[in-house]
């Protein structure tokens, strides 16, 4: 008879499947994971401390550098917080351009997350296909903003560059190519028998557990929580008639499928923005003033909130950032990993919650 032994197995901090360092300590019985605990703190940057006392035009760039994958939303939330403090109005064209760039950023982030999951379950073909599509999205970001990752596109009162008609045309063409490919890869993912074997019914986060762990973003939406999406409270998204994607299974498969569906949804939102884009100014002007606010927005991974306090010259006196990944990592380690029946599924479950350690530790 096979003997099972209780052992504590650390996964990480350096692991070939993970993009960033984190350590998950699993208490196991045989290969069955009884409980898991996460250890963070391998890459603290102290970026909030650097931000203090600097004017907004410097903090804007530091905010982008909190996260290398979802940089646009950090810029957007910080600048919109400043706008709410000082009552700066944004022209409609600029608000729609912000949504376009933000959704492009969300698309590339979701594609990267799905790449990383496919790579972890050893489906490298699909992973490489997804990375190939991501390049198309990044090219469009570069065409609009001039940079691939740290776009620096949003400034108080508007955006920095206008969308030219020829760029809008190229964006539409690229979107239909991306949609075609993403639909094909979604079919590959949802119909693959080996993918289903590695994904369905593994790492289940129930709706109650998601609420209890304050899970956010696609992780929560895969467990049936749709109302946590901060885009529902953003006026531009409200005017576009946005409604979140919700699935109810709560397993690894659902989390990846939510991301695939949100990529298609983002394509729809961008098309709607391009259709509605009015002629007009892209900057309303306005100088950030004194005040303090807690403002949140929906990052690709969930709710991102900034506490900002400024003085009358637009310098940031105090700032505190709460990023979405910390809640999802907690939900992953304390709820999803409990009861995972194989150690090989620990990495894939952890990756399916899309942890961004750079965001978490700032």
């Amino acid at each position: 008879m096979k003997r099972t032994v209780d052992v504590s197995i650390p996964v990480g901090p350096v692991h070939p499947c993970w993009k960033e360092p984190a350590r998950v300590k699993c208490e196991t019985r045989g290969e069955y994971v009884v409980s898991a605990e996460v250890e963070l703190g391998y890459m603290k940057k102290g970026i909030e401390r650097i931000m203090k006392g600097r004017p907004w035009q410097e903090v804007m760039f530091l905010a982008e550098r909190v996260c290398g994958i979802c940089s646009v939303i950090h810029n957007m939330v910080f600048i919109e917080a400043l706008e709410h403090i000082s009552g700066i109005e944004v022209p409609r064209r600029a608000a729609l351009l912000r949504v376009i760039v933000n959704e492009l950023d969300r698309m590339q982030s979701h594609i990267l997350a799905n790449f990383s999951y496919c790579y972890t379950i050893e489906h490298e073909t699909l992973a490489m296909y997804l990375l190939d599509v991501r390049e198309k999205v990044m090219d469009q970001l570069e065409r609009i903003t001039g940079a691939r990752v740290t776009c620096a596109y949003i400034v108080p009162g508007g955006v920095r560059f206008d969308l030219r008609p020829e760029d809008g045309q190229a964006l539409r063409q690229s979107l239909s190519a991306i949609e075609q490919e993403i639909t094909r890869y979604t079919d590959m993912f949802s119909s693959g028998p080996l993918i289903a074997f590695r994904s369905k019914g593994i790492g289940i986060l129930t709706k109650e557990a998601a609420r209890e762990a304050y899970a956010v973003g696609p992780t929560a939406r895969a467990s049936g929580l749709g109302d946590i999406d901060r885009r529902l409270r953003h006026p531009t998204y409200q005017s576009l008639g946005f409604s979140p994607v919700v699935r109810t299974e709560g397993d690894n498969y659902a989390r990846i499928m939510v991301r695939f569906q949100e990529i298609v949804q983002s394509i729809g939102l961008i098309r709607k923005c391009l259709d509605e884009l009015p002629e007009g100014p892209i900057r309303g002007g306005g100088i950030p003033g004194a005040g303090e606010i807690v403002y949140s927005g929906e990052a690709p991974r969930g709710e991102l909130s900034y506490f900002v306090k400024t003085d009358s010259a637009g310098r940031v006196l105090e700032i505190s950032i709460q990023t979405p990944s910390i809640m999802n990592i907690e939900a992953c380690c304390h709820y999803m990993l409990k009861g995972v029946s194989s150690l090989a599924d620990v990495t894939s479950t952890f990756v399916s919650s899309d942890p961004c350690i750079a965001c978490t530790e700032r």
Partner: protein
Amino acid sequence: MALSLVAYIREFARWEWARKFLAARTAPLVIPPYFRNYPELTGKTCTHHLFCMMACPAPGAIDVIRTPEGWQPRIHIGHCIRCGLCVEACPNGVLSSGRILESMFRDNTRLSFSFKIDVDLDKCMGCGNCAVACPVNKLIDAQMSHGGRASTDDLLLKLSDGKCRVLHVEKCTGCKTCEHHCPNEAISVARLLEAVHAPEEEP
């Protein structure tokens, strides 16, 4: 066996595959014209407003230096984060990066600077160092006495009733000389950056 070997060779020894294998060339890497690269000089005359240095978010990324041809901005590659704010802030279009300069003329956008001088009257002890050191004051009234008192009211800073008063803040160039010369840290200059659309034409 022999038959399968022939089938194998027929399947895989294809001429076009061999040709591709031998003659494959990666397309050369090109930087697209819309990429925001390090700023480059356009050859226009720099007027030493230093707005590029004031807008720059990266420490030590840009300097304006004096050359035999006149003032010239110099970018320090490695410090520069390629944000392009210096290109947008320059009033004369001395720098260019990607399509930024072109977009500014096309969309009629720019970054405009204004300055705000705060004097903490509790800390100010009326030494007048700020008013004497101010280069704008020096242009208006070269005869200003060492205490910062003057007969004209056209000045940027002036001492009256034993305290520093800001008279014409619109004349400030944001050099922060007053801030460096204040012994008590009573005066501070804030550089306010504003992203505007359709600015007034330069006279």
